[in-house]
């Protein structure tokens, strides 16, 4: 991605053990960051939280598959108009294009597919996603574009009754 945020400023990194009980922590950290930095509206924070949960779940499953003891890395970067969450695993390298396509929901066969919903969810929930599989693992880069920084509640007419200072 050409427009990747560069430089170490504003980078926050979380390493979690590749175990299911830590996915909730990754969600909590990302949604807290998004809300304290006032980067996104509440429903978009929910979207990002869900996308990060899906990416971390896949990462943990990738580690279990190859039985590696390494941690999953969740990296956050932001600037005024976008934020980026990178989830990196040390699994086998996962290519989302190889996912089997699900039958249409109206087909009774659809009930045989309990998995494979995470990637379509990520693709829908974030503004931009990139999967970068390699022999040493997979990096999932999710980008959300933020509302203009100068937007405040006054723009929605919520402060109409307030006296000018």
């Amino acid at each position, binding site marked *: 991605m050409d427009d990747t945020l560069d430089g170490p400023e504003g980078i926050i990194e979380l390493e979690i053990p590749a175990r299911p009980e830590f996915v*909730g922590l990754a969600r909590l950290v990302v949604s807290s960051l998004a809300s304290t930095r006032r980067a996104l509206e509440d429903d978009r924070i929910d979207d990002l939280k869900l996308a990060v949960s899906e990416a971390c779940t896949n990462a943990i*499953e990738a580690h279990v598959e190859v039985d590696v003891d390494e941690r999953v890395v969740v990296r956050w970067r932001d600037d005024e108009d976008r934020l980026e969450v990178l989830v990196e695993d040390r699994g086998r390298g996962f290519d989302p294009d190889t996912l089997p396509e699900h039958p249409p929901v109206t087909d009774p066969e659809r009930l045989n597919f309990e998995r494979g919903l995470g990637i379509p969810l990520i693709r829908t929930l974030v503004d931009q996603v990139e999967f970068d599989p390699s022999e040493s693992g997979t990096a999932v880069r999710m980008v959300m574009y933020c509302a203009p920084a100068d937007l405040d509640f006054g723009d929605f007419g919520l402060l109409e009754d307030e006296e000018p200072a």
Partner: protein
Amino acid sequence: MDLGLDVEPDRNGYTVLAVRGEVDVYTAPRLREKIVELVSEGKYKIVVDLEGVDFLDSTGLGVLVGGLKRLRSHDGDLTLVCTQHRILKVFEITGLTKVFSIHDSVDAAVAA
């Protein structure tokens, strides 16, 4: 992170399973076990009440799809109660609103 699972064994002939908390890769296995347990007790009409759920991801969806499949194989059904926008959205994106009957309340679900 806690998952609450409360069972009301007989409400108008349905078993109501009220789920509370976060359903993800860590907690979803407990939801699956509970559904399997109810089915093994011969409860084939199950209403899963999601009103107390704060978070649900694809692992939770998978468990519900698996439960529905299991119940249909017994000529039963698994229906849902959900009015929360952020949870409904997950069903909408994945097209599963077409697979599950989703009701506004437990009363509506057991009257269906």
